[in-house]
Structure formats: structure tokens, C-alpha cells
């Protein structure tokens, strides 16, 4: 493994009930890179992230750089609305002390939620009282606590108002450039891919194409990935 490589995946296959969801997937990710994973519904994008996190049984090899600290923002996060857990207590799940958290950790929580544009006052609210947008921002802030080397995001703007999307992606971009965090991002939005990812992995059970978006996302490759008319042309409006 080259020193700057943080993840090497070789021959990764995942099978559910005799149906192959991922087949012979190979790719590498460099330190500090932002890689977008795109593909149609049911292409295995979320399965890929979950396999990379060790949450699913798989064949093939997944090698993270030794000691790499990984964090994850899942696509769906549901908690019983009446469970009496505050946003701060949710953050404390990552603290060295739950009952008596160190002041330095509390400071970190304040920094990360401010970065995500959240008010301190939301930390006292129960998770069930937060709006969809606040929950999503909190989840990203939570994932950023203790500064992971790698951040895996599964459709981080799903269920968030359109206005929030750009903000969230800009913030993720800022974290990536300022902290050198490696970002693996599942997205269905091609405009996001063009703007925020250095590389793209097109997935439809197996890898259809990979490389810098402007080079590999040709009409021919997109047709191979989504089928004829299977993607929205307006997604291709690239804003530089």
C-alpha cells in the first residue's frame, strides 16, 4: 500500500439470500480525497459503505490504513421521539466520560455544532424535538467530534430542505480541506459530485466507471450506469 493510500478494496463481493449485491468491487482512496459513490437505486451504494465499516459479512479484502479513525453518518437515523436523550447526551456517547465529561470534550462539542451552524441551545433539547435539518447537522457534527481521519456519509442531505443541501456540502468541503479529512460520500445528485468530489465511483452491483468526474462521467458511461433516460439531465448543470 502506498503511504498516502488510506483505503484499498480488492475483489469485494456481498451476497444477500443468494443475490449478489456487490460483485468484485476494486478501488483505492487516497488520504484527504473526496470520493463520491453514485449509482441507481439498489446499486449497492449503502451496502458498500456498510461493508467498508465492517457491518456486513463480505468476500474480498478491505484494508484501511492502520490506525485510521473512521466515522459515519448513516442514511437513516431514527430514535423513539419520547426517549429522554438530549442532543448533548448523544454527543457524550463519544466522550471519555458520560457522567462527568471533561471540559475539553464539551468545548469540542460546542466547536463542531457551531461549525455546522447550530445554536448551543439545541444541546439541551431532546433528539426527538429536533427538526430533520437540525438532526442531520447534529449527526455530521457528531461524526466530526474527535476529528476522524475518514468520514463516510450516506446521502447526508436526504430529508433535508433544499436550502440546507448546499450549506451542508460546503461545510463538508471545508472540513475536508482544512483538516485533511478523507470523505466517502454516497450521493444521487450529480451536481454535488461535480462540485465536491475529486473522484467518483460509479456503482451498479459492480464498478461501472471510476476517476475524476469530468473525465469519467461521459454520456456513454452515464447511460451504462443508469440506463437510457434513467438519470436527470438537469443534474448535469455544472456550476463551477
Amino acid at each position, binding site marked *: 500500500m502506498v503511504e498516502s493510500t488510506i483505503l484499498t478494496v480488492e475483489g469485494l463481493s456481498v451476497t444477500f439470500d443468494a443475490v449478489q449485491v456487490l460483485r468484485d468491487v476494486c478501488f483505492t482512496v487516497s488520504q484527504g480525497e473526496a470520493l463520491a459513490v453514485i449509482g441507481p437505486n439498489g446499486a449497492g451504494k449503502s451496502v458498500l459503505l456498510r461493508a467498508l465499516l*465492517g457491518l456486513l459479512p463480505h468476500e474480498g479484502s478491505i484494508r484501511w490504513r492502520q490506525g485510521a479513525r473512521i466515522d459515519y453518518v448513516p442514511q437513516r*437515523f431514527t430514535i423513539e421521539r419520547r426517549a429522554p436523550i*438530549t442532543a448533548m447526551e*448523544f454527543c457524550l456517547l463519544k466522550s471519555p466520560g*458520560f457522567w462527568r465529561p471533561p471540559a475539553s470534550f464539551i468545548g469540542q462539542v460546542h466547536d463542531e455544532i457551531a461549525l455546522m451552524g447550530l445554536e448551543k441551545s439545541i444541546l439541551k433539547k431532546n433528539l426527538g424535538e429536533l427538526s430533520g435539518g437540525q438532526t442531520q447537522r447534529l449527526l455530521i457534527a457528531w461524526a466530526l467530534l474527535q476529528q476522524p481521519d475518514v468520514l463516510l456519509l450516506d446521502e447526508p442531505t436526504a430529508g433535508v430542505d433544499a436550502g440546507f443541501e448546499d450549506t451542508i456540502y460546503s461545510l463538508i468541503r471545508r472540513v475536508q480541506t482544512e483538516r485533511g479529512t478523507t470523505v466517502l460520500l454516497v450521493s444521487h445528485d450529480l451536481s454535488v459530485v461535480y462540485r465536491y468530489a475529486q473522484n467518483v465511483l460509479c456503482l451498479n452491483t459492480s464498478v461501472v466507471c471510476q476517476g475524476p468526474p469530468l473525465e469519467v462521467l461521459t454520456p456513454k458511461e452515464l447511460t451504462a450506469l443508469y440506463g437510457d433516460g434513467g438519470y436527470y439531465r438537469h443534474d448535469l448543470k455544472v456550476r463551477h
Partner: protein
Amino acid sequence: MQSSYHASFWIAALVGLASGSVGPFILLRKMALVGDALSHVALPGIALALLYGADPFYGVIVFLTVAALLIFWLEGKSRLPTDAIVGLLFTASLAVGILIIPNADVIESLFGAFPVLSLPFLLVILFMAAALSLLCFVLAKPLLFRIVSPDLAKVHGLGRNYDLALLLIFAMIVALGIKLVGTLLMGALTIIPAAVAKNVSGSMRGYIAGSALLGGAISLGGMWIADTHRLLPGPSIILFGVGLFLLSLVVRPKRAA
């Protein structure tokens, strides 16, 4: 022992505390009914121990530990309907227990009694109850992490062994309370304080601590009622707890919808 009376109050206080400490985790995992059924498994354990002349406590410990391991195994098999199997199997074990338990011991086994214990045995029970309460607080973070998001917990190195730890702690606490509260009602003693505390808590730390204190208070209050009115301690404790639960529905703070 000076009298079983003082011993009973000490057991009520500490077993109540332990029940209240573990309750929030069981309730948040939506295992209230499974937990309740678990306590029924103790009955054949009591029956077999009595048949072979051993202290029922040992029979209870063995049967509840096996039942906890069985629930853990079932939870890992997503294709099996855990609720249905637990309901059937554990109720069947109650039926088997009733058939083989000597008649003279039925009521006490089902609904509890003021326990008569030797001093060393009493001290062991009190020590275990205190230690298990403490363990719930020490392990609160990983246990909660597993409940809030099993996936995120696993990414952070917290696997299913914490789910197993919770089940075993729960089984031990149920075992400790069975002499006092009985096999039919002991599961409820772990659920009621947590259900009351949930209605009035605004934070998780307040919820866990409040439930623990309420567990001790409900047990002691129920014991006092049983003692002053010459009633069985088990039903008195549970009914006192249910009364507090109803009260908590009325006084609970308003939350944003």
C-alpha cells in the same frame, strides 16, 4: 439474623435500586414484555431446586442465565420471531413449573414473601444488588450507545457483547428480587420505576438516576404498605408502583410535540 423483617427492608431497598437502574435500558430496547416473561422462567428453577433440596436461588440463577443466553441467541437470528418464541417458551416454562412445584410453595414462588435468609446469604444478595446497580451506571454509555444506534456503536468498537451484558445483568437482578416479589411480578419491578421516571425526565442521565432512586422508593413504600396491612410484599410493591405511574401521567412536564 435478627429478624426477616429488617432483612426484607434492606433487600427491598437494594433490589429496588438495582431494578430501577437496569429498567431504562430494558424499556428503551423495547424489551419490557420479553423482560417480564423472562422472570417466569425462574419458576421451574425454583421447583427443581425444591425437589432436590437445594436453595431455590440457585435454580433461579441457572434458569434465568440460560433464558438470557437464549434471548441473546434469538436476537441474533433475524429470521426467527423473537417475541413469539419468548412468549411461548417462557409461558410454557411457567406451566411446567406450576405442575412440579410443591403446593405449599406455589403462592410464595409466584408472588413473593418476606424472605427468611441466613446472614451470609443476605449479605451476598445485598452486595450483588449494590454491585449490579453500580455496573448499570458504569456501563451506561456503551449500553445506551448500542440502543441509540447499533451500527454507530459497532463502528466505535462496541459489539453485541454489550447486549449480552445487559441481558445477564437483567437476569441477575430478576434472580435477586424473586424471593421478595415472586416470579410473576419481578419483571414488572424492573419496568415500573423506568416507566415512571421516563414520564418525568428531561435527560437520559436524569432518567437513569431517577429510575434507580424510584426503584428503591417504590420497593420500600410497597414493603411498608405490605407490612402495615399484613399483605404479600410482591403485589403491594407492584401496585404502589403502578399508582405512582398513574400519578406521573398527570404531573409530567409538558414537552414540545
